């Protein structure tokens, strides 16, 4: 139960990082990555995964 970022499509804008309620998203080696241990898919927090909702490249997807 976690989301991941398809880094080939990521624009490295950081919008997802700012929205994640669980600080699961970090900037590593030039790209953003989701820590599956911290990602809750926003269950119980929001109606939809926040990263996927804000991502302009639609590259935050279920892992």
């Amino acid at each position, binding site marked *: 139960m976690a989301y991941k970022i398809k880094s080939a499509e990521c*624009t*490295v*804008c*950081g*919008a997802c*990082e*700012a*929205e994640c309620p669980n600080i699961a998203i970090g900037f590593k080696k030039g790209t953003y990555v989701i820590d599956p241990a911290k990602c809750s898919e926003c269950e119980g927090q*929001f*109606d*939809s995964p*926040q990263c996927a*909702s*804000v991502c*302009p*490249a639609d590259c935050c997807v279920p892992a």
Partner: protein
Amino acid sequence: MGNVIALDSILGLGELKAPAESTPVEASGCTTSSCGSSDGPADMDPAVWEKVKNHPCYSEEAHHYFARMHVAVAPACNIQCNYCNRKYDCSNESRPGVVSEKLTPDQAIRKILAVAQEIPQLSVIGIAGPGDSLAAGAKNTFATFEHLQKKAPDLKLCLSTNGLALPETVERIAQYNIDHVTITINMVDPEVGQHIYPWIFYKHKRWTGLDAAKILHEQQMLGLEMLTARGILVKVNSVMIPGINDAHLLDVNKAVKSRGAFLHNIMPLISDPAHGTHFGLTGQRGPSAQELKVVQDACEGGAKLMRHCRQCRADAVGLLGEDRGEEFTADKVEAMGEIHDDGDARRTYREHVESERAGRHASKEAAKAEVQETVGTQADPILIAVATKGGERINEHFGHAKEFQIYEVGPKGAKFVGHRRVDQYCEGGTGDGETLDTVLSAINDCAAVFVAKIGGCPSKSLEAAGIEPVDRFAFEYIEESALSYFKDYAERLGRGAVRSRAGQDAVIRTGALTARRA
């Protein structure tokens, strides 16, 4: 801000103060907040004028003398525009297909101070992306401004936004003393908006269609009102999209004017399949120079129009129309070592400008009076393309010009109406025919082109195309020269020696100038 020079006395006829020349559409009818404050010079709030007179993006006169700089510290965005591909910078403030060097707030401060030390014309620091300056909590934007206010308090601050997050951030904007805000408003009707914005991210949710456009519209209007209520200047940008919002822009102009926007800037949609934007891929075209001018002219009586915006990139540095960004990349700034900036050079420069500008208005008026006397209303206004490096003078070689400033000159005087970007005709010393063709199509609606110098070959091609190359005003002031030329032109027109170019249109160039990667 003790070292901001009072230029009021010599700027009596600055573009922002001048009343629109068109006759008012509705002669009577005292509507909303515009009551009692027409566009006339006497009526402009002195506080507004104080803020804009040295701002190159806002005051047409100031843009000849002062430089602005943008720092790209805000990569995230909270909406999607159909003319934007987020692989590149925000198309609202930059041009599509441009990539800026993203900076952290610390890097941005260093870069700004390095530029301030080198370029005394610097008067404005802006944040316009590369995404939306207020998205993602506006953290980087405010961090940058906070530092800057401490380190170089004489520099003016401004930011640009799509407006979605404005109502929630106005308080902080006011607190940081950011007195210029640009909002891109392309519609005041969600029915129109749904064709421009596929979605927005608002209150933890992605909204689409009419709902998205409705929320965005309401936030934009509320944000605009909240800003103007706090005395913060607001400029509105609109992207003109033929067939979608071109006719609607008059409504936008009225709506933003009634809410206190002091300037309205209508920019052409720049659309190219290569940019990978929705509009680019669906073949939505941008307006021609003539179509753009028609809408700009129609809006002239409303919120004041700005015509010299060059849609500079989010990390642009320099006087409008030039970009020295490549001299100040993060690596180069890093290598500069200790940076000292005490603002002395800027103070000296501003004093110099003050003395240079003194007396200019009198000479413009004299030239205008002479034209009115000799020409009267016999000749229609013409457009003139000018090669200039700034300082309001004709001081650029035809082959070195990366853009031409377009002046409309007629019995009512000479006024700046826009600029046209071109490829440098003689990049590296050799002029080639293909580039010349793009120059010709970019200024095809002009009767003449003023240059400091021009070679024989391009001269002949211009003449063949019906555009007169003029170098006899080299290094002189633009407006006076334009009026003097017009006098002569009207005389020649009268005896049939020249033909009018009315009805010609020109092509708006999409790339060139600063589109190269940093």
